[in-house]
């Protein structure tokens, strides 16, 4: 029984997006190498779910698998359920329809994704006219509404402007408005605030929260910043080496992290409240799915690894408020806070030449 089975049988009325056993391979020199393995989670209507990970974790690849934007030659297996359909098995044409209309995507760099050649108006109305069949004036009116809904002042003026005339934060709002214009079931936000200033980031995050409250918007929020995810997500999935290693509701990840990786990740971040003598480090570097060792992908870097960790591929085990992918999940691996463990010496990365 997969994690998602367990979750869905507990009387959920409706799920916007569900992933089950999704594994994606990319083609490298004629071979298929995995980038994400057995990924499963779900997003209910009006929920914001966070997908958090470092480099090689596969979080972006997961988004691309959902959106159908994989590199050439890549193969995805499993179930990506949107509504009643499995996006991985429907026809290409149906897939394109669904992607255009049901899934909205916003990216890290709005300047790279909004065509600088056209005015904002064109960017905003194009989707509506193609996918919703609205007329030019109808689309325009809706676009203006959306622009003010996302907090842009003087929306009519903004419509006439070119992307270069707007700041990063404003452009990101335009991108959000554009993504929402076709009334998608879910919004995929891939590092959407990473390139923004802290103050702008906070504004965009609260905007997403507002949209969720007002419109019941579902969001898959992808980021490398756990603290940021904490601000806004109802549930957080932590990814490592292409796998989901921990899923917890609410603030579970912060109050009581259960996977050694999550725990170490939280501790490694400088804390604005206090300075420590040395930051606790996780030795080694993050690995991707294709470079992962056998058994648990994290075991070479794990403080609690045992013999079995090198051979057993851990499954997701149910814990309070979520799941953890660790064979030692039930044990009380640490009882005190991390503070005094922060005396790890600065580790050399020297031994792994291309550690990823």
């Amino acid at each position, binding site marked *: 029984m997969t994690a998602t089975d367990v979750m869905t049988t507990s009387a959920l009325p409706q799920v916007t997006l569900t992933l089950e056993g999704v594994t994606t391979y990319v083609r490298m020199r004629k071979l298929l190498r995995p980038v994400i393995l057995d990924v499963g989670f779900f997003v209910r209507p009006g929920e914001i779910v966070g997908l958090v990970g470092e480099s090689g974790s596969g979080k972006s690849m997961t988004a691309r698998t959902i959106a159908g934007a994989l590199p050439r030659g890549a193969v995805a297996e499993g179930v990506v359920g949107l509504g009643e359909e499995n996006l991985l098995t429907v026809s290409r044409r149906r897939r394109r329809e669904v992607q255009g209309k049901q899934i909205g995507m916003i990216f890290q760099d709005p300047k790279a994704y909004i065509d600088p050649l056209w005015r904002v108006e064109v960017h905003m109305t194009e989707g509506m006219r193609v996918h919703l069949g609205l007329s030019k004036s109808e689309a325009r009116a809706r676009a203006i509404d959306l622009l003010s809904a996302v907090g842009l002042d003087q929306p009519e003026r903004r419509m006439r402007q070119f992307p270069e005339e707007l700041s990063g934060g404003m452009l990101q709002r335009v991108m959000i408005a554009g993504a929402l214009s076709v009334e998608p079931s879910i919004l995929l936000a891939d590092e959407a605030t990473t390139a923004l200033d802290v103050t702008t980031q906070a504004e965009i995050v609260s905007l997403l929260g507002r949209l969720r409250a007002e419109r019941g918007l579902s969001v898959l929020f992808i980021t490398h910043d756990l603290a940021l995810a904490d601000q806004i997500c109802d549930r957080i999935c932590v990814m490592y080496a292409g796998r989901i290693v921990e899923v917890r509701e609410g603030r579970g990840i912060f109050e009581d992290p259960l996977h050694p990786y999550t725990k170490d990740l*939280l501790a490694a971040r400088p804390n604005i409240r*206090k300075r420590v003598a040395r930051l606790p480090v996780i030795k080694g570097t993050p690995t991707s799915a294709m470079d992962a060792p056998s058994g648990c992908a994290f075991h070479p870097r794990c403080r609690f690894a045992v013999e079995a960790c090198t051979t057993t591929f851990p499954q997701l085990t149910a814990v309070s408020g979520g799941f953890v992918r660790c064979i030692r999940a039930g044990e009380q691996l640490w009882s005190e806070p991390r503070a005094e463990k922060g005396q790890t010496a*600065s580790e050399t990365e020297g031994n792994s030449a291309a550690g990823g």
Partner: protein
Amino acid sequence: MLLEVKHLSKDFRLRSGLLSRSTHLAAVKDVSFEVPASGAAAIVGETGSGKTTVARMIVGLETPTHGEVLVDGTPLVVAPGPSERRRRARLMQMVFQNPFLSLDPHQPIGEGVEEVVSFHRLRPPAERAGRVEELLAAVGLDGRLAAKRPRQLSGGQCQRAAIARALAAEPQLLVLDEPVSALDVSTQAQILNLLADLRAKLGISVLMISHDLALVRQVADDVVVMYKGEVVESGKVEAILSSPKEAYTRRLLAAVPEYSGTGRATGLP
């Protein structure tokens, strides 16, 4: 006082249109602060605050419109030629944000470090290889990586190599422009610890440019907060972060997503 920055200003003249009616961009306005020997200071600000321009003026990559930079009480030449730069390289070095672009893509990292040592004639030829190994070890890189090119290394390894190259000139001040923002959290921690070690071992001063307040808290003793080219607030890190005086500083702090290492939620006032 190792570094003194006095009334530094930078005006960019932008040409707009064929008739070249130039407009001015005052990127930096009257910035002053000090960094003590073996000290650690940070300049904090968002995009457009001018913090990177200040850093570039200090090391000599930009020419100030007004103001001066003093090292050990001596003012630095405003538009340095190659011989002045050579001299200045022994005083201060810079580490950049993008680890991959900071290194010559074509050059094995060991060679890059050795080039600095031999260019400044810091060691006789026989001792150079040993010195390179020493420097690489000081930044936590295995000597066997010396033959690798940046493409073969991770972001963290590249940044360490860039630090090694900077240290090869034996500077007194290291200016770091967002040195870890392009790295993973786990790698960031390693680099920050490395910087603390280097400060302790070599007595080197550090000036870090960052937008990340948590980082600044961890690394710096003194901080300068900049907004739109001006200094908004400056002083000891502990003081400013616990009781910020200016509205902008408070806004900056309030926007920081907050959690503590033990998993307990803490909020700022």
